[in-house]
């Protein structure tokens, strides 16, 4: 038997990791005496929506875009920032678990919180949703792109973490005709699933199905895209290519039917079993294809048998 290391779940990581590990130490602050007329420049050049007001590392308040707008609307008479800042600041301590940060972000609907050292009250940094998600993914050693982090912000990851129903989306690009690199996406996906705590047998089934689909895209199309949505109860995989399409899907599904060229057969593929393998590994599979346009394959694998909810087509 192969033994698997215990994979941490996102929820567990939320308790294990502390605010200190995820916060942004790149501190941008303003002095209480700075004039309001300078604020716009500070916010804009740093692309931030608010900034802590400090004196000798002590947090005095926060001034944000909204304060700036109010000041502009009421005549923009120049004054010190300390006159307009909010002094009632909700903060986090560096030694609190990340879930507290997630909770507070949700509760207050703010974009960021100042982080303080508990004993000294010294301002150490700030923390945002993106900082938290970036840290969680990094800890899970999941490959991610910055643009995806920004997308998660709009998704339900926070609510999901709290409700123990994490939903994650992974995306991979397949390079067509590159036989040597074929399988890289399936391999990366399998590793990510295991790190998320997916049952090893399920991760293996998903990997086999996606690998066969990936091979087909490499062999028959010029490239494609894999999108994987991991829900608490099911994994949904979508493999899309803009290749030649399949003229007769029923025929393509027949075991042994293959149009694979000779070079592919010499490499051990093209036995006409791929689509059948996918079907065997999946709880449900749908293919749609348009000749000259491309092929789209949907694969569903249930992770908790009792509560499967397939999307109705």
């Amino acid at each position: 038997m192969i033994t698997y290391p215990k994979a941490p779940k996102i929820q567990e990581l939320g308790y294990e990791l502390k605010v200190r590990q995820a916060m942004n130490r790149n501190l941008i602050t303003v002095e209480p005496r700075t004039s309001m007329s300078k604020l716009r420049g500070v916010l804009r050049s740093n692309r931030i929506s608010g900034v802590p007001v400090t004196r000798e590392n002590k947090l005095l308040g926060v001034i944000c875009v909204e304060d700036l707008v109010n000041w502009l609307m009421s005549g923009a008479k120049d004054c010190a920032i300390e006159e307009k800042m909010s002094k009632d600041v909700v903060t986090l301590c560096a030694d609190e678990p990340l879930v507290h940060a997630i909770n507070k972000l949700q509760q207050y609907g703010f974009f960021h919180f100042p982080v303080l050292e508990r004993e000294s009250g010294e301002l150490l940094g700030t923390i945002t949703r993106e900082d938290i998600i970036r840290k969680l993914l990094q800890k899970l050693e999941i490959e991610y792109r910055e643009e995806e982090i920004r997308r998660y912000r709009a998704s339900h990851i926070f609510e999901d973490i709290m409700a123990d129903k994490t939903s994650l989306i992974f995306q991979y690009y397949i390079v067509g005709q590159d036989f040597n690199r074929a399988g890289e996406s399936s391999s990366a996906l399998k590793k990510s699933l295991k790190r998320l705590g997916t049952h090893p047998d399920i991760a293996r089934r998903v990997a086999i199905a996606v690998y066969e689909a990936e091979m087909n895209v490499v062999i028959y199309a010029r490239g494609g895209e894999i999108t994987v949505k991991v829900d608490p109860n099911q994994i949904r995989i979508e493999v899309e290519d803009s290749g030649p399409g399949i003229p007769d899907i029923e025929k393509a599904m027949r075991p042994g039917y293959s149009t694979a060229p000779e070079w592919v057969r010499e490499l051990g593929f093209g036995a006409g079993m791929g689509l059948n393998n996918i079907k065997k590994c999946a709880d449900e599979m749908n293919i749609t294809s348009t000749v000259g346009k491309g092929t789209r394959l949907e694969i569903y694998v249930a992770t908790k048998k009792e509560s499967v909810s397939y999307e109705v087509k």
Partner: protein
Amino acid sequence: MNLGKIRQILRAEVIVGSSPDREIEVCCACDLMSEVLSCVPTGSSCLLLTNLAHSQTIRTAEIAEIPVICFVRGRKPESQNIKLAKKNGLVLLSTYFSLYEASGRLYKEGMPGCSGSRVS
């Protein structure tokens, strides 16, 4: 059957990785990767005997969780594929016997196939 005994029966050379005490439960002798993917039982510790020494053999083993590959007829993968195997903790062997001879030798010594059948 442990890996040390398998090496002895096949007079196999180790290309990468080595754990002579590792138990192998079944053997799959095959050059069709789709077939390997579909017939190797989940959770079994399997040996793959094959003629094909390219990147997709290594990928197939990784995806289907096959811990050991033995290439027949003295074949060996290129160094980048050996690296890939190493990264995934696979054991790679190479034997001068053909697929038929290597299979026969192991079967005779009691190694079962993927369907569970073994010499009686």
